[in-house]
């Protein structure tokens, strides 16, 4: 029973075309941060490809020392933004600073930045170790001291747990091993800022945990980490700061808790008898609460007749749960279930971004139902399979 499903009316009527301005999630938690306190600071950062704006007037500010998550649907412009921060792409408009240096002069700050953009890319014919060796030489790590350079390469290989297979050819690596090598390369310069684009893509659950621990540890050591990801539960768990974009535009930046606090909490009530649903809704409505009824699938064991249960959703904080229970009881309504629902990042994300793949918004709008609701995502959403496969 997933309360974030598309059958929820609050969600179904949310049009993907107009989320940013209307959404309470649009706020800027870090508005007061000065440029010198930020690791990444941009104003009006824009990248146009022909008529399409991949990134549209982005005002980023990622505080120094933060572990910041960068989220947005496929095609939102995350990788494009990160590439501009690394001097790989020239912005069409706007300006920015990284570690206090302008992004037009990447050689002034990149020696303190480690990065992995759009997946790990290495020379397929060289071993993982030799690939890192090449980057270490290029960065001047250890100078002419071969031993010092090799020690650093060994260190980062150990940090990502790739020590044993380091001498195999990169082309023989599994997806997860390639990803680890990419992270190792990013750690090579002992950076003050780490920019990672979907570092956990393709990692197994244990690997994801390891990376989560590693990032936490790095951020704990004072490194600023700016990490894009589609694993929103991960982001919610580890990131203290969040940047959310869609269609190249900013939806939210600030503390994750601020975003979630702005979400309205709900209490879901399922009466034992379906017939009581309407009466229960009226009762709660009389209390001044906003209420909705919709049908949810019951547990699979339920008989066919009871396949769908009416769920009464009251927009109320968790603290009111006992009160609502008492109200129902006094009215002679037995509840099958009473559950407080605290909004999480994934749900908030889906609601704010319109539950639709950024690149598919335009085509999806054409396919909207007459009542303005959006047809089921049909694979366009960020289902787990999609996260893994199409992410890079």
């Amino acid at each position, binding site marked *: 029973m997933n309360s974030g499903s598309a059958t929820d009316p609050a969600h179904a009527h949310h049009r993907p075309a107009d989320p940013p301005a209307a959404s309470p999630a649009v706020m800027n938690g870090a508005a007061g941060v000065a440029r010198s306190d930020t690791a990444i600071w941009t104003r009006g950062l824009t990248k146009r490809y022909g008529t399409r704006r991949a990134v549209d007037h982005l005002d980023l500010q990622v505080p120094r020392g933060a572990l910041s998550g960068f989220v947005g649907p496929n095609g939102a412009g995350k990788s494009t933004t990160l590439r501009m921060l690394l001097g790989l792409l020239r912005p069409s408009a706007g300006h920015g600073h990284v570690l206090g240096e302008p992004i037009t002069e990447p050689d002034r700050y990149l020696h303190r930045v480690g990065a992995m953009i759009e997946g790990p890319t290495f020379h397929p014919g060289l071993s993982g170790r030799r690939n890192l060796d*090449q980057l270490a030489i290029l960065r001047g790590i250890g100078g002419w001291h071969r031993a010092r350079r090799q020690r650093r390469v060994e260190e980062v290989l150990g940090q990502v747990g790739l020590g044993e297979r380091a001498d195999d050819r990169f082309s023989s690596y599994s997806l997860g091993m390639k990803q680890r090598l990419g992270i190792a390369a990013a750690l090579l310069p002992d950076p003050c800022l780490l920019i990672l684009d979907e570092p956990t893509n393709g990692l197994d659950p244990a690997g994801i945990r390891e990376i989560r621990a590693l990032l936490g540890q790095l951020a704990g050591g004072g490194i600023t980490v700016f990490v894009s990801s589609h694993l929103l539960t991960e982001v919610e768990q580890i990131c203290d700061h969040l940047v959310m974009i869609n269609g190249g535009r900013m939806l939210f930046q600030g503390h994750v808790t601020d975003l979630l606090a702005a979400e309205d909490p709900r209490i879901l009530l399922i009466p034992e008898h379906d017939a009581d649903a309407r009466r229960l809704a009226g009762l709660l409505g009389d209390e001044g609460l906003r209420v909705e009824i919709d049908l949810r699938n019951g547990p699979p064991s339920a008989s066919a007749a009871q396949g769908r249960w009416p769920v009464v959703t009251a927009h109320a904080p968790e603290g009111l749960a006992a009160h609502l229970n008492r109200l129902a009881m006094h009215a002679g309504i037995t509840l099958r279930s009473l559950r407080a629902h605290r909004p999480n990042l994934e749900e908030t994300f889906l609601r704010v971004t319109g539950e639709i793949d950024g690149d598919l918004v335009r085509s999806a709008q054409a396919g909207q139902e007459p009542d303005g609701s959006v047809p089921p995502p049909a694979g366009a959403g960020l289902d787990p399979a999609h996260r893994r496969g199409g992410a890079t």
Partner: protein
Amino acid sequence: MIAAFRAEWVPLLRPRLLAGTLGAVVACAVLGTVLTFFSVGHRDFDGDPVTAAALSRPDGLLQGVQAVSILLGVVALSVVAASLAGDHSHGTLRNQLVAQPHRARLLAGKLLALSTFVVVIVAAATVVSVGLSFLLAPTRGVSTAAWSGGAGLAELGSGFVNLCLGSLGYAAIGALAAILLRGPAAAIAVALAYALPVEMLISRIYRPAHSWLPVQLMQEIATGGAAYAMPYADALLRGVLYAGVMLLLTLVIFRRRDMTA
């Protein structure tokens, strides 16, 4: 730039590439030398008679490897194009640009390393060809006396420099194609198609174009001005000019280009 130069040797020295290119140039050198000595008493590619007396002259020692200078050029072009375009297509270039954001320095280091590599493979071809020439000379009645004299050594030195310059000219075409097209297969195919059939056709149809087309000039330089009646110094000047313009274009494009690879 020194760091970029040193770093570029890591992929260049991988055993497969090394074995492949050295194998190719050595095979070319053997082919050219053997064919040159076996054509004594016959006519060469341009219809001129090949005689033992001509091969016995001080410049006879390098005839074998000069005969396949086009092939050496093709190998040089391919190695450079594959290496530079490979960085694009493997996506390794973006890692390198994060490690060395100064694009001009990165490219200069790479080109320097690749040029050195080209010189090394030309040297390998020359050594093999020279050795083989000394072996084959007695069998075809060619005298080696003039080869090891002062004039012979001077010819050897200048001939080697010319071969290197010619091959580096081909390499410059490969570099430009790689930066323009960003994929090894496309870069090599287009560069070779231009260097061989296209230029050959143009110069066949309109003979004077021969002294102005870049690859024809590189060829002219590689063989020390032997192939076509035009002053060597002119060919060298024009060839160097072409190569300079190509490298400048490569650098400008590389510096300004958005790295989407």
